[in-house]
């Protein structure tokens, strides 16, 4: 089980050593400065001191408090560098996996068309993540492994690690990438080597990157039998270019024009017959009020918004 701070990769120990070193020194000096300030304020208070000393400096002290901090920060630098250097030295035997980032989901490509939503990795095996972005910047962050690297379109960034603890850990996106940035999460699942091999064999080689969450909802509810994604008209209007566009709709009060943002889209799913798109017939689409729950509704809207942002 993961505790709040425990490290789960070979890299964590050196990183944590740097943390402990820097935090200890910071803590001691911050406390020392605070105590000194409180002491000064009390001991040299105006009530007690009527004749303040008038000295203006001391070269020896200045040299001391230049040199000593210099030594301390150079040690901090050293610990940081030592903890970091192995992160850039990928062992040649590392198993390559491509992490694909896009708005707003991760997928992990194991080669030969095998793509997974979660990152399943074998215990005690070196893994190299090649980072591929399909749209904007993302950041692949696995706190328990102490690794993070930006996923930038056109750049071949990478990171590596060797998991040393079995279990499930979080994957986050750390570069702001739009509406559902905070929902762009995944799991790392560390399993025994044998279990991993079995899992990989069972993973279907679809060659497809799994659908975005919103699209899954659309497919799962059969929306795409009436709505196309490519602009063609089926029974209902196509979803292409829907988000942010102007719609002419017929209501009980007559015809009006609305902007197709979140509210309108949600209304047209929950209660499609209140505003009927001009040129289509009322009553063809059933109200989905009791079918599609809040979160799925948001996913659909996210999906529409995202499609509209892509040029």
């Amino acid at each position, binding site marked *: 089980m993961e505790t709040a*701070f425990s490290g789960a990769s070979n890299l964590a120990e050196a*990183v944590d050593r*740097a*943390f402990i070193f*820097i*935090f200890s020194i*910071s803590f001691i*000096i*911050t406390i020392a*400065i*605070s105590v*000194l*300030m409180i002491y*000064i*304020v009390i001991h*040299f*208070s*105006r009530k007690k*001191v009527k*004749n*303040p*000393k*008038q000295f*203006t400096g*001391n070269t020896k*002290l*200045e040299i001391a*408090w230049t040199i000593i*901090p*210099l030594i301390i920060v*150079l040690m*901090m*630098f050293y610990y*940081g*560098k030592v*903890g*970091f250097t192995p*992160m*850039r030295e990928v062992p040649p035997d590392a198993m390559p996996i491509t992490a694909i980032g896009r708005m707003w989901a991760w997928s992990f490509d194991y080669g030969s068309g095998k793509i997974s939503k979660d990152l399943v990795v074998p215990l005690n095996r070196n893994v190299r993540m090649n980072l591929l972005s399909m*749209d*904007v*910047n993302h950041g692949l962050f696995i*706190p328990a492994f*102490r*690794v*993070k690297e930006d996923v*930038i379109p056109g*750049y071949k960034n990478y990171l590596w690690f060797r998991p040393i603890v079995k279990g499930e850990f*979080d994957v*986050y*996106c*750390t*570069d*702001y*990438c*739009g*509406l559902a*940035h*905070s*929902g762009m999460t995944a799991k790392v699942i560390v399993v025994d080597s044998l279990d991993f091999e079995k899992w990989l064999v069972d993973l279907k080689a679809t060659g497809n990157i799994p659908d975005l969450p919103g699209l899954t909802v659309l497919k799962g509810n059969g929306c795409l039998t009436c709505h196309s994604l490519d602009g063609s008209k089926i029974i209902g209007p196509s979803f292409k270019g829907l988000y942010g566009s102007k719609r002419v709709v017929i209501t009980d009060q007559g015809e009006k024009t609305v902007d197709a943002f979140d509210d309108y889209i949600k209304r047209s799913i929950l209660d499609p017959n209140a505003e009927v798109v001009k040129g289509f017939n009322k009553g063809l689409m059933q109200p989905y009020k009791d079918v599609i729950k809040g979160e799925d509704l948001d996913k659909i809207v996210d999906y529409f918004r995202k499609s509209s942002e892509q040029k």
Partner: protein
Amino acid sequence: MNYNSSPTAPLNFLNHKTGLWSWLSSTDHKRIGLLYLYSITIFFCAAAVLGLLMKIEKFAPGETIMTAQTYNGIFTIHGIIMIFIVVIPGLAAVFGNILLPIMIGAKDVAFPKLNLFSWYVYITGACLGLYSQFAKGHVPDAGWTFYVPYSAEVNSNIVIALTAAFVLGFASILTGLNFIVTIHRMRAPGMTWFRMPLFPWSLYATAWIQILATPIIGITLLMVIAERTLQIGFFDPALGGDPVLYQHLFWIYSHPAVYVMILPAMGVVSEIFPTFSQKPIFGYMPIVFSSLAIALVGYFVWGHHMFTSGMSYQARWFFSLLTFLVAIPSAIKVFNWLSTMYGGSVDLKPPLLYAISFIFLFTIGGFTGLTLGSLATNIQTHNTDFVVAHFHYIVFGGMGFGFFAAIHYWYPKIYGRMYNIRWANIAWAILFTGFNVLYFPMFILGLQGMPRRYFDYDPKFQTGQMISSIGAFILIIGLIGMISNLVYHVRRGAIAPANPWHGVTLEWQIPSPPPHENFDEVPVITRDPYVFDNPYTK
């Protein structure tokens, strides 16, 4: 400093002319400073409320009071306002304007009309920032950093926000230029460079950063605008550009910009410690040269914002090393301030209270900055709540508390009236408590892996998030307490003498509020700035 003040003149810069237009058309540096003070205060309060809204949203995981889209818009405009409209002009535009000429014995800045023009440029930029929120379409949501490709592709009012930042940059450049020329050309007879007080020195170092670094962000933002409107591929890979190039250009400005914010605050507390200890500043020269060193070395550390962007290994450790070196001048200053108080006659009035909390908060911000500057630990903390906590400690705890120290210090000089001291102390206590309850838990959240700019979060982070949200409420109460005390006493406070704190720099030698042209007779300076040869406590 043998300038004798005339008996308090009834006519002063506040009342020698009246009416709104006399303010909007005034080229008096003090009035322009107040124009900045009022505009900055309004924007600060607005953005602070936005900060509170974000914290309410984060009180619990999932949607609490707003949608993800609203949250993303709010953190963006909160950042844009706080950075470009509040803290970058901040101390320099307000207290620099009001006090720089007085402290060096001049009647005004070198280019008074340009000074007024800068304020109008500033207001134009600030209004554009507001317009980005109300114009048709989506509010901008790329964060104040505007990283490409997102900012080049997203369908929201990014161009307006970019133009706002671009225009605000001009105001900053013009103010910097004005101050450099003022300091070079307008010092009173006898005021040699090393007889200049430390606040003007810090403004001087700041001004160089403003005029040298700001054009870089200007052109960079223009390039993103060109990218969006003319489809020229500078940064967006979809158009053949390089997204990491954008990050380099952005931080070449924005790291030095951090020093534009913090250096003047260091200058302010360097004035406050001597006065409230009735003792000369300790280590005048080291403080001056550490400001210049920060301004210089601060140019070469921008890469520490990009340790995970895929830079070469060599670049990463080199930027890390330089980052550690730039910490030294700041440490030197802290030790000099402590030694200034040591052996003095220390009077714990509100300005000193704020100055001391400045040291405390800045120390925490500084050390966590070292955590971010060290490579191994940066990887874990980069782009998490740890960074958010760090920069609020530096910028709000440092620059913000420096600003509060300054207003409590010079308030009686500016308005000729005194605020309520007890009230100020209580507000300080609430503010200081709220600040730490709000931001300290974010260090721990960040270490646990909580990323920044997250609308929603894993329930395992809830305890920390809740404590932090409670802190936001306490902080806001403290802010209201502090501001209302100051506002209330502008007209109703007790009449303040010309020199209530027994300071020795030039501004304390003239009446409060200062007359329209500061000095009836230009002072002649014959000695160092901080000589307390007759401490009034004797």
